[in-house]
């Protein structure tokens, strides 16, 4: 009987990890955004975003630490609401989008606390350079949507240094790092 229980428990563990739900970032309905902000001269925050990206993740509320995410950003889609600046940002001194049209994040581990906050570690690739980063995540909510689907959403933020990814243009001493903000809603497959 005891052995039976153990087998059952093991089986349930296996099935939960196998059964983790797969989600697609809701790009169609654009209930997702990848934004950044960087200090301008030390006086204000300049915000911008990537308009085109794609991603999938797995998430199981009974075993959130098994979650995995994979995001690809189209670097050409950078948008700071200023044609000339965006042209610079696409250029060689910044994102060099001709040579590096994609930026990616692939998670390696996730730890979520009971309050819904968590740390998502993984490899971030920008301008062809890959570095490990930690994204500080908070769980927003999940449930049925009114159209027959099931959704879950998170928010995450991290800070990266421009020089780490080969962006060496001098924007001033206050502007050596930028914050990334990811807001994602996944629709269960």
């Amino acid at each position: 009987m005891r052995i039976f229980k153990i087998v059952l428990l093991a089986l349930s563990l296996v099935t939960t990890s196998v059964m983790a739900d797969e989600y697609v970032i809701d790009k169609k309905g654009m209930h997702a955004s990848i934004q950044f902000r960087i200090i301008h001269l030390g006086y204000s925050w300049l915000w911008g975003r990537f308009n085109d990206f794609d991603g999938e993740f797995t998430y199981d509320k009974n075993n959130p630490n098994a979650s995995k995410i994979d995001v690809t950003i189209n670097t050409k889609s950078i948008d700071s609401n200023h044609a000339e600046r965006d042209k610079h940002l696409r250029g060689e001194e910044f994102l060099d989008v001709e040579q590096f049209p994609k930026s990616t994040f692939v998670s390696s581990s996730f730890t979520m606390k009971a309050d819904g906050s968590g740390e998502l570690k993984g490899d971030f690739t920008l301008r062809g350079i890959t570095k490990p980063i930690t994204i500080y995540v908070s769980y927003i909510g999940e449930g049925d949507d009114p159209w027959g689907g099931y959704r879950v959403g998170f928010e995450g933020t991290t800070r990266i240094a421009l020089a780490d990814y080969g962006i060496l243009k001098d924007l001033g001493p206050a502007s050596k790092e930028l914050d990334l903000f990811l807001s994602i809603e996944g629709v269960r497959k």
Partner: protein
Amino acid sequence: MKITNSKQGYGIVSILLHWLMAILIVGLFVLGVYMVDLDYYSKWYNAAPWWHKSVGMMVFALLVFRLIWAFSNHHPVPLESYKSWEIKAAKVTHYSFYILLLIISISGYLISTAKGAAIELFNWVDVPAIVSFSKQQADIAGEVHEVAAYVMAFLFLLHVCATFKHHFFDKDITLIRILKPVKPKEISK
């Protein structure tokens, strides 16, 4: 003083247009090459493009007037001493200048207005954006602007060399004709 062109030479309007635009265009080229490599902390970082855009649009207005003027006016006849290849080369160069200037003006405008923002014409009026044809508009227009400007700079050198050739080697009145309106008897020299 003759205002319009005659068969013998240029009128004062054509002469002034030629020299005013020559000065402005050389200035724009030099400024353009200089400003694209400015440091973010340079005093000229914002001012140089501002002048470039305002003067550029002024040149475009002058160009439109010049084309109307040129095509509704006599074109001075080639000197008898010109060889037929010189006449052909001059014609090609002449039309190329007009076409390149149109391309450079329009492509320059398309860079700054790519995302719908207007361009300031000095502190006088905002010239609105009209077309937004592609997400790559600023990049494509930028390439065209740069390449066309360098082709024009090459033509400019050719043009100057040809002037010297006519003035110092052929010793004809080619240069004199664009410096001041000529009297009919001078043409026979």
